[in-house]
């Protein structure tokens, strides 16, 4: 349960008074709460844990981590198999 996965912010919007967004995790797009990263912008990369963006991360290391997680099968474990 403690996995945190990097992804790219594709969209930012308000929902129920909270800053939310859609984040792309190497092909899987999920709704994520962005309230804890008030500075983050569309196109930035972030590390997400249980639906919350907790820190910003650079693009290159995000891609590297995603590739490693994919090799280790962790993305499927977290989000279910991608078709």
């Amino acid at each position, binding site marked *: *349960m*403690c*996995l*945190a996965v990097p992804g790219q912010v594709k969209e930012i919007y308000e929902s*129920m*008074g*909270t800053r939310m967004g859609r984040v792309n995790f190497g092909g899987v797009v*999920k709704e994520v*709460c962005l*309230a*804890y*990263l*008030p500075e983050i912008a569309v196109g930035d990369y972030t*590390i997400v*844990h*249980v*639906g*919350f963006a*907790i*820190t910003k*991360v*650079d693009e290159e*290391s995000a891609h590297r*981590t995603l*590739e*490693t*997680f994919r*090799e*280790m099968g962790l993305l499927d474990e977290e989000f279910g198999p991608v078709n």
Partner: protein
Amino acid sequence: MKYLDEFRDGAMAQSLAREIRESATRKWAIMEVCGGQTHSIVRNGLDQLLDGAVEMIHGPGCPVCVTPLELIDKALAIASQPGVIFCSFGDMLRVPGSHHDLFRVKAEGGDVRVVYSPLDALQIARENPDREVVFFGIGFETTAPANAMAVHQGKLQDIANFSMLVSHVLVPPAIEAIMSSPRCRVQAFLAAGHVCSVMGYWQYYPLVERYKVPIVITGFEPLDLLEGIRRTVHLLEAGTPQVENAYERAVTFEGNQTAQKLLSEVFEVTDRSWRGIGEIPRSGWRLSDAYHDFDAEYRFSVSTIRAEESPICRSGEVLQGNLKPNECPGFGKECTPRHPLGATMVSTEGACAAYYNYGRFVSVDSIR
């Protein structure tokens, strides 16, 4: 080591491992605190790769594993009540309580739902105003901002049918408890990277000062772990205990201050029992007075439930690094992932389950 050989950065990993082995003049005992790191170390065979240079001691950093038995019993009691929708992270469903688990409650007709995020539970509460919706809020500092936000929004939006059963635990007091134990063999710690993404790493300086052990903030991927271990061994060999950040890309000194602000409003520090270990002073968070109405423990009057651990399970010694999983008499016999006696066998991030799933049935020392 199968996994590491197939790993894209295998050559770099081997080179880091070689450097660690060559620089270690003795076998150092290093504890990785986080269960996610334990899983990655065992899965990728990093401990075997470094055998001789370091002994990796697997710490208590799996929230599923350390959630106390009586809290599981409280969860089971709440989830069994008619009209309740009980929401949880998936890992908690198979954790054995005194008599059964959440899967059994579900099989017997209880409305137990697995959610990805605590906000999903809040949404279920909005959609079911005539039902009580309870979220099992467990975790370390990494998960706390998510749980805090769910309760905070529940209060702001006046979602009166939502509540949370909270069992939050904190890393620094656990390190303190391990270091102050007379049986402690740990000479250095890898601190959990994402805990520090939230909390920063300023709080580790007093621990280094008091116990003279290096603490290195470390990530979760094989190369991150090897780099964290490399830096730790370097500090140990030099005899210079310090805090170092080996996970700079995701961790700053201050951490996420927006998150910390809400955490300090929603939670307050409390003494907390850790499954298999016992009570550690000031080692957890509970809901603060302002959020008392959202505390499931009071809403459902389960705060008097008490429980006793299985006499066979020695997960407490495993969690403190005094026993390797495969040295427990129950390991792989009475206790397996299908029939776990303790939570360290349940969660994939538990040391016992990691050893079982990756075929560590005998200890490294007994192979030699």
